[in-house]
């Protein structure tokens, strides 16, 4: 299982948890698993054209990824980041 760090704007989907576990060989599969366990969460991060929304960032460990087909290893830690969005 992969550890996923959840930012505060998305914790209404994780019952307040700042960290959850999910599985997947790619970022897309991981997001699918998150959606199964936390319904509604994925669409708030990923739009209907499968693009990461403008104020969301996804990091695998210390590296930001821009595509959902990036590979994952079970030892990875995924950080979901809510980037600055104005006042």
């Amino acid at each position, binding site marked *: 299982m992969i550890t996923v760090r959840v*930012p505060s704007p998305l914790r209404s989907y994780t019952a307040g948890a700042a960290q959850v576990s999910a599985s997947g060989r790619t970022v897309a599969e991981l997001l699918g698993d998150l959606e199964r366990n936390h319904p509604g969460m994925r*669409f708030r*991060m990923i739009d*209907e054209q*499968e693009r990461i929304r403008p104020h969301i960032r996804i990091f695998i460990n210390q590296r930001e990824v821009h595509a959902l087909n990036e590979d994952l290893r079970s030892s990875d830690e995924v950080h979901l980041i809510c*980037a600055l*969005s104005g006042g």
Partner: protein
Amino acid sequence: MASTLWIGTRKGLFSLRPDARRRSWRLSGPQMLGHIIHHVVQDPREPRRLALAAKTGHLGPTVYISIDRGRHWQEAKSPPAFRKAEEGEKPRAVERVFWLTPGNPSEPGAWYAGSSPAGLFRSEDHGLHWLPVAGFNDHPMNPKWAAGLRTPDGELLHSVRVDPRNARHLYLAISIGGVFESTDGGADWAPLNEGVAADFLPDPKAAYGHDPHCVILHPQQPDRLYQQNHCGSYRLDRPATRWVRIGEHMPKNIGDIGFPIVAHPRDPDTVWVFPMDGSTVWPRTSIDGKPAVYRSRNAGRSWQRLAGGLPRAQAWFTVLRQAMCADEAPRVGLYFGTTQGEVWASIDEGKSWRCVARHLPEIYSLTYAS
């Protein structure tokens, strides 16, 4: 059950509940603190139901519904979203859900949503699941009707109006794009902008490309439409197709630019507007810093200034298109919310006004629920 004014703001949802005489108002909230609430709407077919359009600064757009008059809210299971773009096609994604409209009484559970960029969506289950209306979103003319001319808040699809006599008869408006009509339940659409000025377009007689700010359909006389446009205020009595510029009867030093237009719940000839400054660089504030509502009792043939109780000077209000509404009392109450976070109420049809809430976040939407 007491009536409620629902206040959608840039930072959450609030509500005001009056006493029986509408003299005293109790503010509640916030609910969903920090969420951007564009529209809150009661379902007149089933008044315990409400829907609201929301997003946050970081997260994508969604819809929440309530089945207990706003005590609790449940997020839509599939919010409004465009279909996946095909290869070579310009991909569209909903940035915000901007508008909500309950469907015809003959279609319980039906709702429509308008988005930015301009998209039309329909739910059959009270707002839990939404699907794109292909007849509009994929209409061959859609790329021209919704050409991506953005207001500062994006390209907005709003003012979805459903004929109470005929579920298949629909209107919608796009800022910027114009007013459009469907007579077949949304399968096909046609522009309805004849007579409306568009002085910002190279062709002032263009069939579309206009900037309607708010379009209303009178519930008791559904062939009567009013429109507050970027270029004036108008009336259209169907089956005519040419809008009449009723704003020409406004005082010249006030003009007929504004965002909202509000109908009397029973009298199709009575309508209220909140004029704003549309000169030079478009401050969009109350004219000369002297806020006033204007009312017509004869379908726009003449107007009266209503400013009793409103600040007499140095009050630079902006009232957005969803932020003015009327109640259904025998002596109609009228309400508006400002971008400065104030709610003003009149219980004598606009003659005199009182500030009933202040210090709220920027108000996007003010809606009356019975």
